[in-house]
């Protein structure tokens, strides 16, 4: 179709073509087109088929209020064609069709509506119960929206931003723009959200003159220019508001253009005050076949012509209930559509100037008339008009039926903000009876339609929103308020509920194929509240979020029940507009920390795995059993990067009291130069952390925590001392310091070469703590520990020194066979020694006693109110707990997998860690088992995944499995 090219209101660029395909056939559009406008221009009238009855559906509005024009684009289902800008090469297909949109093999469903009264799923398909699974399959085949391939991967880039603003204005029409400009006058920061790709709202395409005689679209562009020139206003176009929460938190999502670095992004705006200026949509007219392709709303018809240059039809009949409909008829007549007749359901109240203009255009106006039935199969061919009482009828031929009962405010944002709404008899709208704190409304949604009043209400709301942020603008507000009062106020709205029809084919909700008759059936069954009827008939539960039935359902219900004067609105919930889950998921960053010796380990062939927040070297060869790494530690010497350990300084006059509160041991017994191994419990006595504590000087302690606890430790200690007002400081040194563990029988020989101190066993015995320098340069804190069961030293040094320290140790140990080892080798080495790793040998319910660590607990310090002590005292007498035991497999060939369960008649425990030990040649491990099974020699049956039900057996044995006397770590 040739477009009208010389309109000042056009939003397409006819010099830039864009191609697309629909159901395999090529079509042409232009830059600025939506998918829907391009297809409509290409002659497409049937976009898809309806949910239940497979009725043909076409363009009805242009803002995506219903699923009529939901299509699949490049594999993405349920794309709203009306609001999706056309991009070159889009592949578009119709939804819920067998065959094509025009020739749908399921079209016969439309004749079966008598089989499917309101709530028929609930009422007919449950008896006998066996029917339902079969019925469900058939229902799913016949009904539905788009289909997504199970292996579909969502393309695109998704982002998120969290701007703050003083004032957030929702809606970039004339009222929203004036509100934003007024609020910005006081220098406040304003965020302006607009759903369409441009500002302007209903002014954008209208040619009526505004106060100074220029057409409204020029005024809209002038306001948009002013907004663009105001630096405090940050404007988001193509941005649909989707949620409103307390404290005026507004959420929205923005669709990106070609220039943007995102396809869609989530926006969360924390504003002090909010102006809602979302305007009105048209209230659908209820008559028979009211959703036939060719029936469309007035705004849709006018915008097709004015914004996209497409004439919506050749021979038109109008059935409207507001002045905008009359305005549209005049405009389309001027643009070349033949208007046969305008039926206006209002008996009076029309703008006399518009009536006179219609008369001058020789367009007959029938007041008190309304469309009763649309004729035609896949497209409108004619219409039967009737008086609103239904006493007289006339049939006219046409190919376009512009139908609209009145206007309805877009008050979703107000409902989300929990503003109470009530029916207003003058406007016929649901209007807020009260507004949340610092929230204001403006524009057409308040019932005002006069262009100057729309702008004045915007200015008024903008100034009040600014005042709510503390702006001193009392004089301006008084002036704006009296200016608004001098202008026409809210206008009387059309009260027509339905055309005089029975309603079997009058659709109240297009998305869910719910008719006026369905509502009647629901009322007959005793439902009397719109909210319940909505659920029973499913009217308003589709993707359009009640955009089509939101206003009509309460009106129809009120008329059918005894509450005609007080219709009750249904509610809406976020997101107000369908949003991709990908948009909420955002960029999905993977963020990890690397230790200071990451590069050195990578150079040595380290294979890294993500462990908690860290990337750690798990293996140093392809052998995932780590045979060489393990044996090298047992025979020679190995280096382990333990920099991920939590490291803390705790100092101050009350430092000891804080330690006594959180550690189960008595920290008074700490002496300088000695290390104390201890644990922290929670209030249930369950172990949450273990590590070592060192007293460096009076009131100055250094302690380590497990890797996983490093992030929460300060918060934990502060929490459990929050009432005490103690004077101590906590410094998290986890990232500031690194740790290398040098372990193996030759560890001392390596250290001797580089340490500026005597490291002999007499000078630096087991469980001692020393501070010295390496190569007269690097200060280290050294702890002689034995986690892996060999002679070993943990050297703690500033992160910046760590690469050098690592290199020095590697060089010094070269002749002694020093090799790095990874986390898995350490895991096996310490398991052989019976040392636990929290989270591996414990779970949330495992307490200190279960792990056999009761010896750490000092019960004499009850004054300290140690966290977990009370619970441990109670748990001591509890025989019904899991206990940590050592086990040896009966068949020594291999160990069961970690996490395998221990069973008899029921589950009795699980294997924590088990490995084939290269050191001892036996398959051994640790397990948590029910206390009665914990005795030495007990035979345990182990069930392993994918074992075909074959149980494996083990005996409970004493731990440790390696060097029970501990001679090797003390050598």
């Amino acid at each position: 179709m040739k477009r009208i090219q010389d309109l000042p209101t056009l939003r397409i660029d006819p010099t830039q073509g864009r191609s697309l395909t629909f159901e395999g056939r090529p079509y042409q559009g232009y830059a600025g087109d939506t998918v829907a406008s391009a297809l409509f221009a290409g002659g497409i009238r049937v976009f898809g088929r309806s949910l239940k009855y497979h009725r043909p559906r076409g363009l009805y509005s242009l803002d995506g209020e219903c699923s009529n024009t939901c299509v699949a684009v490049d594999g993405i289902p349920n794309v709203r064609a009306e609001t999706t800008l056309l991009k070159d090469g889009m592949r578009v297909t119709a939804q819920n069709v067998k065959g094509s949109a025009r020739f749908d093999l399921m079209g016969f469903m439309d004749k079966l509506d008598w089989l499917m009264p309101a709530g028929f799923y609930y009422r007919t398909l449950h008896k006998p119960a066996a029917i339902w699974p079969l019925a469900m399959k058939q229902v799913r085949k016949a009904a539905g929206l788009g289909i997504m391939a199970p292996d579909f991967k969502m393309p695109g880039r998704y982002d998120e931003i969290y701007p703050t603003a003083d004032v957030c204005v929702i809606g970039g029409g004339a009222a929203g723009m004036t509100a934003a400009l007024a609020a910005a006058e006081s220098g406040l920061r304003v965020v302006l959200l607009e759903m369409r790709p441009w500002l302007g709202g209903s002014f954008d395409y209208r040619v009526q003159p505004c106060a100074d005689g220029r057409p409204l679209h020029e005024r809209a562009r002038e306001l948009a220019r002013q907004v663009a020139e105001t630096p405090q206003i940050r404007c988001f176009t193509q941005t649909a508001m989707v949620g409103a929460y307390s404290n005026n938190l507004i959420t929205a999502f923005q669709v990106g253009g070609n220039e943007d670095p995102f396809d869609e992004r989530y926006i969360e705006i924390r504003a002090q005050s909010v102006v809602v200026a979302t305007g009105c949509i048209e209230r659908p007219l209820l008559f028979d076949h009211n959703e036939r392709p060719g029936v469309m709303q007035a705004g849709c018809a006018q915008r097709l012509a004015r914004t996209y240059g497409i004439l919506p039809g050749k021979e038109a009949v109008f059935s409207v209930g507001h002045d905008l409909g009359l305005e549209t008829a005049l405009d389309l007549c001027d643009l070349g559509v033949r208007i046969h007749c305008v039926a206006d359901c209002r008996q009076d109240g029309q703008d006399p100037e518009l009536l006179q203009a219609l008369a001058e255009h020789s367009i007959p106006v029938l007041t008190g008339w309304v469309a009763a039935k649309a004729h035609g199969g896949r497209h409108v061919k004619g219409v039967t008009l009737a008086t609103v009482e239904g006493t007289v009828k006339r049939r006219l031929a046409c190919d376009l039926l512009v139908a609209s009962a009145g206007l309805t405010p877009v008050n979703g944002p107000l409902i989300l903000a929990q503003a109470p709404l009530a029916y207003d008899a003058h406007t016929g709208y649901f209007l807020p009876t009260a507004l949340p704190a610092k929230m204001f409304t403006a524009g057409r949604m308040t019932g005002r339609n006069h262009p100057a009043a729309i702008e004045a209400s915007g200015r008024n709301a903008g100034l009040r929103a600014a005042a709510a942020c503390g702006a001193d603008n009392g004089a301006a507000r008084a002036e704006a308020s009296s200016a608004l009062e001098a202008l026409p106020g809210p206008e009387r709205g059309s009260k027509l509920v339905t055309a005089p029809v029975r309603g079997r084919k009058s659709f109240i909700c297009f998305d869910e194929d719910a008719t006026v008759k369905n509502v009647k059936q629901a009322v007959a069954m005793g439902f009397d509240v719109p909210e319940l009827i909505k659920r029973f008939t499913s009217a308003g539960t589709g993707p359009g979020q009640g955009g089509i039935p939101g206003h009509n359902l309460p009106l129809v219900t009120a008329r059918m029940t005894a509450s005609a004067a007080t219709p009750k609105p249904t509610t809406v919930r976020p997101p107000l507009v369908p949003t991709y889950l990908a948009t909420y998921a955002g960029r999905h960053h993977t963020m990890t920390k690397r230790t200071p010796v990451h590069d050195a380990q990578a150079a040595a062939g380290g294979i890294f795995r993500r462990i908690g927040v860290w990337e750690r070297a798990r293996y140093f060869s392809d052998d995932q059993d780590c045979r060489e790494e393990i044996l090298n530690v047992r025979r020679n010497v190995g280096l382990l990067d333990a920099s991920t350990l939590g490291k803390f300084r705790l100092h101050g006059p009350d430092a000891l009291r804080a330690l006594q509160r959180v550690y189960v041991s008595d920290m008074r017994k700490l002496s300088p130069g000695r290390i104390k191994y201890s644990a922290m419990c929670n209030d249930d006595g369950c172990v949450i952390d273990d590590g070592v504590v060192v007293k460096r000087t009076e009131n100055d302690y250094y302690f380590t925590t497990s890797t996983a606890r490093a992030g929460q430790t300060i918060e934990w200690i502060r929490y459990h001392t929050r009432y005490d007002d103690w004077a101590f400081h906590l410094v998290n040194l986890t990232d500031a310091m690194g740790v290398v563990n040098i372990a193996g029988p030759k560890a001392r020989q390596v250290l001797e070469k580089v340490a500026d101190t005597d490291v002999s066993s007499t000078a630096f015995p087991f469980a001692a703590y020393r501070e010295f320098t390496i190569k007269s340069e690097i200060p280290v804190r050294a702890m002689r520990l034995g986690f892996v069961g060999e002679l070993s030293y943990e050297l703690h040094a500033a992160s910046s020194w760590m690469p050098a320290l690592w290199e020095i140790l590697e060089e010094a140990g070269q002749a002694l066979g020093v090799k790095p080892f990874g986390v898995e080798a350490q895991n096996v080495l310490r398991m052989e020694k019976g040392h636990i790793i929290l989270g591996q040998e414990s779970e949330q319910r495992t307490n200190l006693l279960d792990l056999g660590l009761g010896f750490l607990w000092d019960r004499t310090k009850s004054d300290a109110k140690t966290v977990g002590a009370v619970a441990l005292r109670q748990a001591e007498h509890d025989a019904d707990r899991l206990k940590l035991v050592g086990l040896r497999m009966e068949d020594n060939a291999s160990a069961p997998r970690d996490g395998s369960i221990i069973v008899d008649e029921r589950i009795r425990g699980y294997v924590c860690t088990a490995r084939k030990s290269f050191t001892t040649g036996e398959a051994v491990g640790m397990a948590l088992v029910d206390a009665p099974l914990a005795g030495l020699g007990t035979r345990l049956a182990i069930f392993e995944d994918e074992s075909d039900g074959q149980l494996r057996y083990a005996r409970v044995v004493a731990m440790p499995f390696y060097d029970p006397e501990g001679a090797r770590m003390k050598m």
Partner: protein
Amino acid sequence: MALTLTCPICGPRCGYEFRYGGEDKGPRPAEADLSPRAWCDYVHMNRCTAGLQKEWWCHKDGCGSWFTTWRDTVRNLEVPEPAAVETSS
């Protein structure tokens, strides 16, 4: 999260930055003669007030401090401390 909280050090901040630390139940009870039930009540039982309550929050993604504040649990909004008269009645 729509909730904003006022950290005594950092000022009003987005609720995402904080960790909830439970109702304000007072300091840990002394351990001498503490019955298991009294202990369990202290640790696990909550008043679950529908309305204004004093509670602990940690500014975990900020200064790290623990502080108490008042919140209306029905509207999920931070509120000023109510006048003292309510506790005496």
